[in-house]
């Protein structure tokens, strides 16, 4: 940090007004790692990003987080790490320590004649095309996935809708690797439909090529005994758009980390999420949007409902606007609705801005309660208790459901929300 401290007085002198330490007229000067470099990840972060692992500056910038294909580059987890501090490691069933040799969930692709599914060996050139593990569980999953399932949306495909049903049939710790390639100018929706029982470290990569439009719905509808840690990384090329909707209802511990990195200009990323945690469930979403190039747009909105004792949700949203990313427009928000006592929602929006030459950047987080006063108000207008509760939760989550754009799936989610609510009535 010595560079930062040495040049602050100059900045102060230049703008001629009292300034906040660490800020220049171009924004917050978080770390010196990006100074004088044209690389999207400069300085020590670039070293950290190389596959051999590096020192990095994990606490000062999201860009500095260690990424590596080698699980041994990651220190053993203690639960005190920034990216693990909310996760109950006791319940993760060894995904961070064990050999993940259980049977991976079965995969089956339906819904499209154009979109294809194939299996490639772990040394195939596609592996790692958009993904580098950035935590120990993801790297462990990388190590033990012996093959990869590749979903390909061919060039110029239009309006394709495909569902990859991922069915867990064992509680032995397993690893899985899925690659989705959206070729140039293609347009498709792919649903990753996770059902059954599994203990799974999963890596999913999305290669969104120039001018492709890809919508992904990752639905976590696991049985109650499941543990799922999923790192889902996208590379978004010039002119492309990537929409990711994470929907998490089922499982004992589910941790989904979607991220998107821009590689070309005029690209757009939307990350949406919807979660509904019941008593005892831990549902965690950590996302990262990396604005590494100029003139791209991102929008993040996650909404969650919680009910029951020890229902716990975690949302951490990291948006990084790098020095090169002038003309960026970005916004991220998380909204939680706590329906009963005893539930806990953690929400941490992080925004790092390394250039002031942007169109917009904002973040918001709210956690509200549905309490007796809300109920009284609605009932005093003739609405019975069940309807009142439904009205509030349905209305709250509907904003995300509408983003899915698939009627059958929207209906299934609405039904799921209804049955989750029915559980509250008992």
């Amino acid at each position, binding site marked *: 940090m010595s560079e930062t401290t040495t040049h602050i007085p100059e900045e102060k002198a230049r703008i001629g007004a009292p300034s906040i330490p660490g800020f220049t007229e171009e924004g917050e000067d978080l770390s010196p790692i990006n100074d004088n470099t044209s690389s999207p990840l400069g300085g020590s972060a670039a070293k950290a990003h190389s596959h051999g692992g590096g020192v990095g500056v994990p606490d000062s910038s999201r860009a500095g987080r260690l990424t590596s294909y080698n699980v041994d580059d990651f220190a053993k987890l203690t639960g005190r790490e920034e990216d693990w501090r909310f996760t109950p490691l006791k319940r993760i069933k060894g995904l961070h320590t064990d050999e993940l040799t259980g049977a991976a969930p079965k995969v089956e692709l339906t819904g499209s004649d154009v979109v294809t599914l194939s299996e490639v060996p772990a040394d195939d050139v596609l592996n790692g095309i958009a993904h580098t593990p950035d935590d120990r569980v993801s790297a462990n999953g990388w190590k033990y996935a012996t093959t990869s399932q590749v979903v390909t949306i061919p060039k110029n495909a239009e309006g394709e809708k495909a569902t990859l049903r991922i069915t867990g049939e064992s509680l032995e710790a397993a690893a899985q690797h899925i690659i989705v390639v959206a070729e140039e100018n293609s347009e498709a929706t792919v649903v990753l439909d996770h059902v059954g029982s599994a203990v799974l470290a999963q890596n999913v990569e999305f290669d969104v090529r120039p001018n492709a439009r890809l919508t992904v719905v990752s639905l976590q509808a696991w049985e109650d005994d499941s543990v799922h840690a999923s790192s889902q990384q996208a590379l978004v090329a010039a002119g492309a758009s990537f929409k990711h909707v994470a929907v998490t209802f089922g499982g004992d511990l589910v941790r989904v980390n979607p991220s998107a990195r821009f590689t070309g200009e005029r690209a757009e990323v939307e990350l949406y999420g919807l979660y509904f945690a019941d008593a005892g469930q831990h549902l965690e979403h950590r996302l990262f949007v990396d604005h590494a190039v100029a003139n791209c747009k991102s929008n993040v909105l996650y909404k969650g409902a919680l009910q029951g004792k020890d229902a716990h949700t975690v949302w951490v949203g990291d948006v990084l606007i790098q020095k090169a990313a002038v003309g960026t427009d970005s916004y991220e928000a998380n909204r939680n*609705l706590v329906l009963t006592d005893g539930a806990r929602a953690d929400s941490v929006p992080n925004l790092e801005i390394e250039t002031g030459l942007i169109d917009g950047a904002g973040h918001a987080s709210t956690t*509200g309660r*549905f309490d*007796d*006063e*809300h109920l*009284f*108000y*609605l*009932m*005093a*207008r*003739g*609405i*019975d*208790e069940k*309807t009142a509760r439904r*009205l*509030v*939760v*349905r*209305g*709250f*989550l*509907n904003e995300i459901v509408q983003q899915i754009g698939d009627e059958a799936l929207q209906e299934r989610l609405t039904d799921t929300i209804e049955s989750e609510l029915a559980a509250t009535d008992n």
Partner: protein
Amino acid sequence: MSTLEIKDLHVSIDTEQGEKEILKGVTLTINTNETHAIMGPNGSGKSTLASTIAGHPRYNVTSGSITLDGEDVLEMSVDERAKAGLFLAMQYPVEVPGVTMTNFLRTAKTAIDGEAPKLRTWTKDVKEAMSKLKIDADFAQRNVNEGFSGGEKKRVEILQLELFKPKFAVLDETDSGLDVDALKIVSEGVNRAQDENNMGTLLITHYTRILRYIKPDFVHVFVDGKVAEQGGPELADRLEEEGYDRYTSVSA
């Protein structure tokens, strides 16, 4: 004609120091087409009466009765009271996340009437009522009371009053926090509802100024959980001049 009858009502709340009696025997009879003003100093139990009529769970009725045309209101759940024709315009309307005004108004109207309103006329009715109360049309798409100012919340309460057409309305300090213009708009709304639906009104207020716009037929003065004095509109004039000191010094 309908009658709302309150007889020897005793109400208490649970506090950290134990049960505390707030209403100590209130008796009132209100008919449709009548306006009763309930006035009194802070802490005299006015708002407790309003919330008890609506059925707020915080208030325990220890003895006495409330009946609507002979039906036992105290036996009814909160939503049943609304369906029976009682409406409480709240002093502090809560913000309800995730529910748009449009959705809320239609759901409530359907619940109260027992059938869905005809879409075409309903939309028109809502628009007209909003415009008369000078509520911006874009409020329809906003969540119930979310981010509304104090004055806007009160206007939205009166909007509901006009649309739901209750037999009896209890207005709990609807005038508090309103400027003169807003007070006039809100009062006109109450007067319209009375004219159009023969509504009976229980107007709870600390100040006399709203009585310039909504004319009471009867005035009841609440002191320490009981009606200390009642009379016609002239009693309000006297209160305006003398304040509540006369009652509080007697009881003290």
